[in-house]
Every structure is written in C-alpha cells, then in structure tokens.
C-alpha cells in the first residue's frame, strides 16, 4: 500500500538497526520513553525491539487516553449512563475500562443503560439529531489529537440548535504529563524515573507543533525526537536520540516532518481555545492530580457540559491496591513486574487501564511481547 509500505520496509529497518547498533555505546544504557500509545503499539506489533541492541531500552509512556482515565471519571460516566433520559455515546475502547466495584460501561449496558458505541463525535451528533427525545452525552476523551473534533462537534451542535447534546469532557494535554514524569510527581511514590530522551508524539504534535517540547530539551536537558507512528519512523527516531545523547545534545528534533510543523495546526488550536479552557487540576490514572493538565468547556458553552447539566460529581475511587498501572504509566516499572499481570489481569479481564486499550503498555506487552521478553533476556545473558 502506497505511503504505508515504505514506512514498514524490512530491509530499511535492518539498515537503521545496524546504524543504531554501530552508534550505540556498548558501555552505557539508553533509556528512551515513547510517550504515545501509538508508538507502543507500533513497537510491539512490528517487533521493533528485536532489532535493537539490548542496551537501548524503550520505556512505555502514558500517552494512551484510555489508560490515563481515572476510575472516578469512569464511575461518573457509568452514573451518567444510568440516568433514564441519557444515551451515552462512547468509543468502543472505553467499554471495558474498569470502574469501581468491577463495573464497566459494558456491564452497565448489559444492565440496561443506553450506551452506544460510536466511531466519531459525528456519530453522537447524528444520534442526537435522530432521537430528539433522548439526552445524548458524548464521553469525550483523548489528548490534543481528539480535542479539535470535540470542539467541532460542540460548534456543530450549536449551529444546528441541538438542545439534547452534551459532552462529558475528559480531554487532557501532553506537555503537563511529560513534565510530571520528569518531575517525579506522583501519588506519594516519587521513584525517580530515569529517562534520557523522549520519542515525541506523532498525531498530537501535528496539532500542537514542536514548540511545546522546547522546555524539556532546554531546561531538563532531555532530547525529544517527534516521530511518526510507522515502525521505520520509530527506528529512525531512536537513532536520532542515540546520536543526540552521544553528542551531549538536548534538542527538539522532528523526524515526522511530513506531518508536523513547528507551530502545529493553528486553526485546530484556535477552535480548541475558543471552546475549551484549562482546568485547575485533573486526575490522571497513575500520575495523580496534575495542575493545568486538562480541559473543560468554557462558561459560554456550559449548556453542553454534561457534568453541569446532570449535576455529576466526582466521587472518590480507589484502584486495586495491587495494580501497578501508576508506576507502569510513569515508566518506573515494566508490565511484567506487576503481580496482577497475566494472572488475574489480562485483556479479557482487565483490572487496570493499561490492560484495556491495545495501546496500553500492559495490553501491548501481553498481546505481542510475552515471548520476546524471553528472547531478550537470553540476548542479555549472551552479551553479559
């Protein structure tokens, strides 16, 4: 397939891998975090780590919107879906995310809540138009990539004069989460995370550009290479990071020049700014409450805010104490280190959010990586 196969070419992959192997200093370790779940998925699906020297380690970051959604927000969506007048429209990925007491949207649906799986915000608008007697609530989640479509949906509802459409807003922002990881901010557990560089977001960066990452390079001395979601993109970004580290540079570099510009998509940014404002604080699964890290609707769009419209309050909700999603999302632990991984927590019966979305670190590792861990351990032994 044109414009896809070129970025998955095995021969090219081997040549980039050879470059990484040649340039990586065998006497040190390179700990690189791919922030995005999209990267995690590509790395796992194409078996990219098999091509890397063992001292180049990839740490899976929290850039998976389903994974960072805290239990309290899932509970809120479930409570909302149980209101008799409400039809909750949600992405399929969200259906199995565990809420409190083993509940999920999927279970609430089976119990009779009117929950519809949709593919886009437009589907939710369509339902609202077709069923004026129902209160249609769109369960909005995601990073900067999915926020502009939600903003457009609000605009569209406004233009159409739709009175029965609102959103449960959970949109979050990437830079504050990267800041939190570097600062070690977390729920009481401040295990420092050793990260020497970031593979920067692909789609998020098409919207926000490269500028927002400058402080991480300038102030924290962490190189950032923005990379596309194809496996060759990731491989090349790794090579670029290894070079920066070797040369003592800390810069924001853009591997994904075919889509990302320094300033990003200004029109999308303007739409988002017109509809949303920053929340003072928002809870992230695994990272705790992060200041100015999420968005809510501006007061002039309050009519579309399901939280206000239905008086939904965030109740306190605690994750399973054994669940390590938090430390895994910060890159402080590997999925395998969690006691629940692969025992009671599998993609069929997820306990933690990292196991739910295919982009989650645990689900990706379970689905694609389990046997590879053995192979890599063997390779490490050989090297040692």
């Amino acid at each position, binding site marked *: 397939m044109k414009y896809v196969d070129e970025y998955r070419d095995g021969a090219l992959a081997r040549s980039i891998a050879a470059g990484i192997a040649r340039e990586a200093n065998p006497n040190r370790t390179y700990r690189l975090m791919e922030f995005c779940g999209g990267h995690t998925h590509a790395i796992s699906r194409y*078996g990219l780590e098999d091509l890397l020297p063992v001292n180049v380690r990839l740490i899976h970051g929290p850039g998976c919107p389903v994974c960072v959604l805290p239990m309290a927000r899932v509970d809120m969506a479930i409570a909302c879906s149980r209101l008799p007048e409400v039809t909750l429209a949600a992405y399929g990925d969200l259906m199995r995310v565990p809420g409190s007491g083993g509940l999920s949207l999927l279970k609430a649906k089976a119990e009779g809540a009117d929950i519809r799986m949709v593919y886009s915000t437009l589907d939710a608008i369509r339902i609202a138009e077709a069923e004026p007697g129902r209160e249609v609530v769109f369960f909005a989640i995601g990073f900067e990539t999915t926020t502009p479509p939600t903003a457009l949906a609000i605009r569209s509802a406004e233009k159409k004069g739709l009175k029965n459409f609102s959103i449960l807003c959970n949109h979050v922002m990437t830079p504050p989460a990267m800041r939190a990881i570097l600062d070690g901010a977390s729920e009481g557990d401040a295990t420092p995370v050793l990260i020497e560089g970031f593979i920067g977001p692909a789609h998020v960066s098409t919207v926000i550009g490269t500028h927002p990452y400058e402080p991480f390079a300038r102030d924290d001395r962490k190189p950032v290479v923005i990379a596309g979601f194809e496996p060759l993109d990731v491989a090349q970004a790794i090579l670029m990071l290894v070079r920066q580290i070797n040369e003592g540079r800390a810069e924001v570099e853009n591997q994904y020049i075919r889509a990302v510009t320094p300033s990003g998509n200004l029109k999308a940014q303007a739409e988002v700014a017109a509809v949303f404002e920053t929340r003072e604080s928002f809870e992230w699964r695994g990272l705790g409450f992060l200041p100015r890290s999420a968005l809510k609707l501006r007061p002039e769009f309050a009519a579309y805010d399901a939280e206000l419209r239905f008086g939904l309050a965030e109740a306190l909700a605690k994750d399973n104490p054994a669940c390590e999603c938090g430390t895994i999302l910060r890159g402080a632990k590997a999925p395998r280190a969690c006691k629940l991984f692969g025992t009671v927590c599998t993609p069929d019966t997820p306990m933690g959010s990292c196991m739910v979305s295919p982009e989650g670190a645990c689900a990706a590792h379970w689905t*694609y990586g389990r046997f590879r861990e053995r192979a890599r351990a063997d390779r490490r032994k050989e090297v040692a």
Partner: protein
Amino acid sequence: MNPEKPVRRKLDLKHGRVDLSHGAGGRAMGQLIEDIFLAAFDNAWLRAGNDQAAFDVAAGRMVMTTDAYVVSPIFFPGGDIGALAVNGTINDIAMAGARPLYLSASFIIEEGFPLADLKRVATSMGEASRAAGVPIVTGDTKVVERGKADKVFVSTAGVGVAPSGLVLTSDAARPGDVAIVSGTIGDHGVAVMSKRENLEFETEILSDTAALHGLVADMMAAAGPGLRVMRDPTRGGLAATLNELAHQSGVGFSIEEDAIPVRAEVVAACEFLGLDPLNVANEGKLVAIVAPEYAGVLLAAMKAHPLGAQSSVIGRAVEDANRFVEMRTAFGGGRIVDWLAGEQLPRIC
C-alpha cells in the same frame, strides 16, 4: 364465490411484509413456506410436508453440526445471510473430512421484514444449496414482534458422513507439522464492515463465502493420511483459529507474516479501521495442519482447486509449553499473535 375453493390472495412479494400471522401456524404461514421456502429450496423431502425429513444413513462416521447466523447487514458485497448460512454449515461438516449430506434451516423473522428481502435470502440459500449439492430438507419459521429480532436470524443444522476411522480433531497438531491457509484472509469481515451503518466505505472487496467441501474432498484424496486437522477461520480470524489449535494440541505455532496471503484492499481497509487482518473473519477459507511429509502434495492439491488457488504454507507447529503463536513480521521483528480480547466486530456472521 365458490365455497368449495376460496380465493387465495398471492403473497405480495414486491411490497408485502412479514406479519405475525406468518408465524402463527395458520394458512398465512403455510403460504409463506410454500411460496418462499419451498419455491427456493424445492426437494422431495420438503415437498412431503412433514415436520422432519427421513433418509437412510450411510455407512461411516456421522458428523453433525449446528450454527446460527445474525450477520448485519444481511446483504453485503459477495453474499448475504442465506448463502452464508448454507456455506458455513457445509464448511463445519467438511472440516471433519466429511461429505455434507443434508441441512436444516430455521428462520426467526422480525415482524415487518419485507417479503421481497425474505425471498431474496431464501433464493440465495436455494442457489447455494443446489450449487453445493446439499439439500435443505427440513426447516421452521417463527415470527417475533418488531424489535425482538433484527430483520432475520437463520439457524441451521447439518449432517454429513466421513469414512469410518477418520478422526480429524483439533488436538492432533504435532511439532513439525505444516500450517497451510487456503487463500487470502480477511475478505469477509471487511466486505461486511464496508456496509455497516456509520462505517460505510467504498471497496471492491467481496465476501469470500463459499462451500469448501469440494476442496476438502480433493485434499483428502491427495493427503488424507497426513491431514491432522482442518478449521475454517471464521470469527476471530486466522489468529483465533491458530490459538485454538495451539491450545487444544498443546503446541505453539511459528508463522511468517510475509507468507500469509492478504489482498491489498483488505490491508488498506484494516489500516484505516485500526484492525489486524489476522483477526478479521473469513467464510470461504480453511487452515490445514498436515504432517510435513504430506505438505507438498497437499499444497499442490489445494492450489489445483479453484477455491485454493492462492494456498500458502504460512508456518509450522513447534514445541512450546506456552502454546504461543509467534510471528516473524515482514518488518523483521517477532511478535505474538494472540486472540483478540473483547468484541472487534459484533454480528459478522
């Protein structure tokens, strides 16, 4: 008016709809069965008008299966729920190495379902059944209130006969055995999805729905003693089938992504839908696990059959206590091919 012979109004096959009387056991039901099902499936057993079909039992091992079809939409590129039901049931019988003999079909119809659509489904079933040489010899019809079913659900059963002593079961794969797939994967799932509400996209892909018993007969003739197991990778796709075989046989599989035939259009559709062709349903393909010494003749026999022209050796069974299905990716790395968790696509067949 002649009291001896009441005028019977014909079914309005153009604009008429199924109503509750069509399932009530009265004349309306009799007319529906006669004008639609008997007309489409016509054979001596049905014409006899009994509540069952009687036939002599052939010598050998009887093979029996049952299946239900709830696919949505009921008409899709390359097929419809009727053809799917006939072919799917035949395939379940054929995978045991058996010759399918007879089918049954039950219809659960939603009140208001257009008679024209029912006729179209029945006609397609009749055609598929005649093409396969496997008659539908008994059936049933129920009508439920609007909203209690979605258009029409079809439930089938099938019987067939296999040679005495032939046992093809899913626990029979052994390390070293060769895995062969009979053609391109993912066609059916993508064809159905392309017509899903809110998901419609333009594609040339047709469902691969087909009865595979002819192909199986050729395979049995060429490599019968070497065949361990056959399976049609329907829901869950090739990934689910290989995982089931791995678990039931207590082996792992090692497969090559490059060797798996996938149409470029299917790759493209999966790409933008975020799916993996390995998880997408097929309705006219099979996976055969064969002893290595028979792999060559089996592959040749499969390729010689029109439904197996694109057959390909995709890998081997290996010793693995974890029963993993491992794949060498085209990119050059390795990965696990797992079952898909949750429901990727409800109502694909």
